[in-house]
């Protein structure tokens, strides 16, 4: 039996972050800086929009023929000596990974960044089964030591200040108390994780791109952790969402040009590693293909394009809501605009407030390297949530009232008169009280003397 947790909506979950001193403006600035770097890169590539169009077209074609491409990928990967596994859901993915670890009698694994394994809850599952999991991406290691989750898909610890990282490292790695110099802390992590790399018995990585034509895959990192984790142990497990596929080797040309520029404003990641089959005859390569709702999402023409996502995080860096509320306020594996589209497809009740964590400014759509119409999808979700009867009572009633109002000219004009008149006499406390959340940070307008209709009748007839 599962325990039903109370559903916390986005504004409530964002409150601690937003009201925590200067945390919100500081976070906003940090992400805007990344967005600025992205703009600089995008503007130096003359064919940027052409690349985006090609990326979108390639992904559309991939998702359309996903079944065939997966079979092609499996055939080619198997021919190279890799073992391909299929997982229908998160639970099966975790079981498959655990079984591989048990087959090798291993207890220590080194893991590089993978949002898919976050989505599947792999770490906790393995830990519950007595496996020591070490996240090796610096940001992920920081949040792992703090028993938190990543607040951003590319910058997992972007919500933390260096002093907080210093405290965590002091506690877990024995760095000097009060030390907060990023260089010193990163050096400490390097030493700490080196020993973990050398002790790791199995390396787990995510996958940025799987290539149907060759049966290989690509992993992009800056730290070199995935490469170290995959080149020392004898066994490499790569976990891959089925939508990560691309049809041809040459398609990498389009995506490697877009990914890092969109993500962090770098021309390319420091390491772009291509794996085709196991390292040698004594090594093993396992590829776990995970569905976990993706094939179902493909059936939905409204939200299908969300499967194009290459997890660059550009939509988060630009989102005015994400920048101010922080990633944890979304209470989902993937936060920000793309997370607000994807999460309700999994559980529309739990995540019903996310499509409203959006001002519909459309900036996410503008920066998305694969042209997902994010803000249109968020709007579509609002409709869907209304249709499913998930709107809160006050919103439902006020929408119904607004609908009545706009359909009836007499009622509309009466309401206008009522508003104009009462606003003139009502004291401030009558409109600004705790039941009216709309006025928390807003003032009501000066009431005009007459309505437009009245003015028009007087002046234009």
């Amino acid at each position, binding site marked *: 039996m599962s325990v039903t947790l109370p559903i916390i909506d986005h504004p409530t979950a964002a409150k601690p972050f937003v009201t925590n001193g200067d945390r919100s403006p500081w976070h906003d600035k940090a992400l805007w800086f*990344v967005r600025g770097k992205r703009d600089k890169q995008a503007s130096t*590539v003359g064919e940027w929009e052409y690349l985006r169009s090609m990326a979108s*077209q*390639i992904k*559309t*074609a991939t998702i359309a*023929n996903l*079944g065939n491409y*997966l*079979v092609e990928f499996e055939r080619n990967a198997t021919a*190279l000596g890799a073992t391909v596994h*299929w*997982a*229908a859901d998160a639970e099966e993915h975790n079981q*498959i990974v655990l079984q591989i670890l048990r087959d090798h009698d291993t207890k220590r694994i080194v893991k590089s960044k993978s949002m898919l394994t976050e989505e599947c809850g792999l770490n906790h599952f393995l830990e519950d089964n007595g496996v020591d999991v070490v996240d*090796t991406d*610096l*940001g992920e290691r*920081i949040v792992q030591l703090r028993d938190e989750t990543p607040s951003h898909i590319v*910058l997992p*610890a972007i919500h*933390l200040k*260096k002093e907080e*990282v210093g405290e965590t490292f002091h506690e877990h790695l024995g760095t000097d108390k009060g030390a907060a110099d*990023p*260089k010193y802390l*990163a050096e400490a992590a*390097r030493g700490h994780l*080196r020993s973990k*790399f*050398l002790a790791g018995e199995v390396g787990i990585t995510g996958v940025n791109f799987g290539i149907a034509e060759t049966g290989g895959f690509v992993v992009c990192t800056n*730290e*070199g*952790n995935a*490469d*170290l984790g995959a*080149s*020392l142990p004898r066994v490499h497990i790569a976990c891959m969402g089925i939508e990560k596929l691309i049809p041809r*080797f040459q398609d*990498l*040309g*389009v995506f*490697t*040009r877009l990914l890092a520029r969109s993500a962090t404003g770098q*021309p*390319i*990641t*420091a*390491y*772009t*590693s*291509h*794996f*085709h*089959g*196991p*390292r040698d005859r004594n090594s093993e390569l396992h590829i776990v293909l995970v*569905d976990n709702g993706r*094939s179902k999402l*493909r059936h939905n023409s409204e939200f299908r394009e969300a499967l194009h996502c290459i997890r660059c995080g550009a939509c988060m860096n630009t989102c005015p809501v994400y920048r101010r509320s922080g990633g944890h306020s979304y209470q989902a594996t993937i936060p920000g605009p793309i997370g607000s589209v994807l999460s309700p497809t999994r559980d529309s009740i739990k995540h019903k407030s996310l499509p409203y964590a959006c001002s519909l400014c459309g900036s996410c759509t503008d920066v998305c390297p694969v042209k997902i119409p994010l803000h249109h999808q968020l709007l579509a979700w609002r409709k869907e949530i209304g249709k499913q009867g998930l709107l809160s009572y006050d919103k439902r009633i006020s929408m119904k009232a607004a609908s009545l109002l706009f359909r009836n000219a007499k009622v509309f004009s009466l309401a206008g008169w009522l508003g104009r008149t009462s606003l003139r006499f009502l004291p401030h406390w009558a409109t600004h009280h705790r039941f009216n959340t709309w006025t928390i940070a807003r003032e009501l307008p000066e009431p005009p003397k007459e309505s437009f209709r009245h003015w028009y009748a007087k002046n234009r007839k």
Partner: protein
Amino acid sequence: MKEMLQQNESITKSRRAILDRLMVMDISSPGLPTPDESMLTHFDDPLGAFVAMLESVGGAVHMLDNPHEATDILNQIDVFASAERVVSLVPEAVQSSFDVSQIKDPHDLSAVDWTIAKGEFAVAENGAIWIDGQAMPHRALLFIAQYLAIVVSRREIVHHMHQAYARIGTPKSPFGVFVSGPSKTADIEQSLVLGAHGCRALQVFLTP
């Protein structure tokens, strides 16, 4: 054995189920695009662009007339002059300090100070260098060494990644990597720190 069979069955079952869900619904597709070369970046001076890009991502570039000059340049770098374990895969440029072919387990490379690797070609648009895993006795050498140097011919420069992948053609070795600059992280308050898990610094030698 029985457990394994059961697991195999369940994997086959999930494979069938996933493919069934994907095949049941036909979606029309626009077809795959082929990049039009005339639309793509073209540098008047690809070598200059490559050097500028590599320096901007934290790499150091040296022009050589002869590969063996690399040793002289490296000797002026303290952390090379004092290095005890150097693995060079480009003997015409730098001598190894020990015989790496004796090493069977990559874990035994943990104390390597420098790796000198051979780059196949370089990419002007992003400062990346393609290294073929086949040219390495252990791919870990690229990532485990404290410092990395890459020797690549300055005649082997492509403009952009489309040309890069066309040049690789069909990948023939189990591993290949584009390296662009030293390993780095900005995970602590967006402060860039060079030398995360891989090499602390990257020296690139461009030979004729």
